[in-house]
């Protein structure tokens, strides 16, 4: 992902005119891709920046208003609440995902009987879409027709059927459970590749030197997995900051708008209230956060110097 520099074609001695005409053909090959990216990504990106400086209703004329949208953001407490909630969710869900995925990765790392079967089973929810998973869990979490509340009631754990989605704490933790179920297998595979890349003889040498499992984990596994850990961490953080499907489908931002995420708030402003310019300004804020995160990622994933 970070190998952005393209240095695959070895520089060869060539005459300046003869060969390069043949090389120009390459431009034709990449042109469709570049066209897609320009039309559906670069231009919209530029438009977002421009729109954020305008009052831009769905119908009628838009008017340039300078930085007014950004000034309005500063006073938009609901956006800051959404951002704060998104950050809170991101921290909790990332910890939860790692707490489940890391033991699973260690569990399936070595080829033993049935390991492939377990790995496939753990991974299955990861190929189901977020929307499908959210619809599925919105049913499991439903108070009347679902699974959890009625089951708890039938087992005598609760005195009446509790609506898990009616108050913040149970609703929030239900989402965490659903996301961990859905994503842990994915993170597990990434962590597994990191574990497998650690040379076996290093571990064996440490065993001979009398290092216990915990010492080996701290002194060998963790440092040698730095890049993998960073990658899994960034993927989880970036995915969580952009969370939308599960909060929209299961909670509709409720209870009492307490689970509106940043993307959800932008969606509301842009496509429910149709304040397109303001939505664009909010998008720019989100975009800056994500780009900053990507830059941190590039730094964390830099190739180790020497043996690190």
């Amino acid at each position, binding site marked *: *992902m*970070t190998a952005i*520099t*393209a240095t*695959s*074609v070895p520089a060869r001695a060539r005459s300046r005119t003869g060969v*390069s005409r043949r090389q*120009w*053909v*390459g*431009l034709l*090959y*990449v042109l*469709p*891709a*570049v066209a*897609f990216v320009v*039309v*559906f*990504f*670069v231009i*919209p990106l530029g*438009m*977002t920046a421009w*729109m954020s400086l305008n009052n831009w209703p769905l119908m009628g004329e838009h008017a340039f208003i300078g930085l007014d949208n950004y000034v309005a953001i500063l006073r938009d407490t609901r956006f800051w609440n959404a951002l704060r909630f998104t950050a809170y969710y991101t921290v909790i869900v990332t910890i939860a995902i790692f707490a489940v995925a890391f033991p699973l990765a260690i*569990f399936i790392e070595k080829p033993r009987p*049935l390991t492939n079967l377990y790995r*496939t089973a*753990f991974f*299955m929810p990861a*190929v*189901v*879409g*977020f*929307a*499908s998973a959210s*619809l599925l869990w*919105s*049913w499991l979490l439903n108070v009347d*027709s679902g*699974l959890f509340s*009625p*089951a708890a009631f*039938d087992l005598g754990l609760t005195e009446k059927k509790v609506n898990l989605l009616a108050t913040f704490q149970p609703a929030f933790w239900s989402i965490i459970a659903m996301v961990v179920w859905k994503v*842990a*297998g994915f993170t597990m*595979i990434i962590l597994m*590749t*990191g574990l497998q890349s650690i040379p076996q003889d290093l571990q064996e040498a440490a065993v001979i030197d009398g290092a216990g499992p915990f010492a080996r984990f701290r002194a060998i596994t963790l440092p040698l997995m730095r890049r993998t850990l960073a990658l899994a961490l960034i993927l989880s953080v970036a995915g969580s900051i952009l969370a939308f*499907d599960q909060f929209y*489908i299961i909670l*509709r931002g409720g209870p009492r708008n307490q689970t509106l995420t940043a*993307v959800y708030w*932008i*969606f509301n402003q*842009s496509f429910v209230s149709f304040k397109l310019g303001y939505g*664009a300004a909010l998008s720019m804020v*989100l*975009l800056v956060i994500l780009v900053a995160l*990507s830059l941190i990622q590039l730094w964390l994933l830099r190739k180790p110097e020497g043996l690190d």
Partner: protein
Amino acid sequence: MAEAMSQGRKATFSFARHSTGMIASLLFLAPIVWTVLSTFKPAQEARQPPLPPWPTTGFSIENYQTLNSFGDGLWVSAQNSIYVSVMTVLLSVLVSVLAGYGFSRFRFPFRDLFFVLILSTIMIPFQSILTPIFLVLTKLGLHNTLTGLVCVYVTLQLPFSIFMMRNAFDAVPREIEEAARMDGANNVTMLVKVMLPLVWPGVVTIALFAFLGAWNEFLAALVLMTDQSKFTLPVMMTALQSGRFGAIDWGAVQAGVTVMMVPCLILFLALQRFYIRGLMAGAVK
């Protein structure tokens, strides 16, 4: 004696490992199995909590049948989803095979710039440029069309799939190409007849990711498809689950979820090694 002890310990370890594995597998699979089983209950029973998950008052496909009676029907959304996913696969494979080949085998002006431009789009969340995408599609006359949605999905796939394809072409030795060129193959026959079979695993991988991405995408479809006849399955099912068509029929919702999940699960099980390869390529590089 000592041997028997260590064998006993081995057996205990193995037992502990397999029971952990079984229980964990069960936890991950249970929600999926629970849903699929309960869709075969008669509508009346499907309204009750799924205890037990399997049908107790007779096997029925009623839930799948009622699904077709909401709005424009399940079948229309399913067709839309299939169309969007298949087109996304075809178009993104075509575009990224060409681009991967171009980036791998030719030196032309701005090559590195274009490559960095395409790859760097993964840094920027598409969620933040949805409004302008909506406006661009309107300008192109693709507003509220499945083709417009396909264009967006293809663009989202490109950084990953072009990166994959360029690496796949890079791994093909140049001698093969030079030999084929001696035999008089031109660029296009070379790509289709000689190179494509050699990078086929990469093609399967990017096709699989493109399909899953398009089939499961929700936010862009929700925003860009405003007409009910253009809804993809996730948007349609969410409309149903939100009670847009009257009282929520959970049996029908679960039937819809099953229709959405099963193709992904089958494709993954059939093409697992290509999927893992894709993840590894993303993780290692």
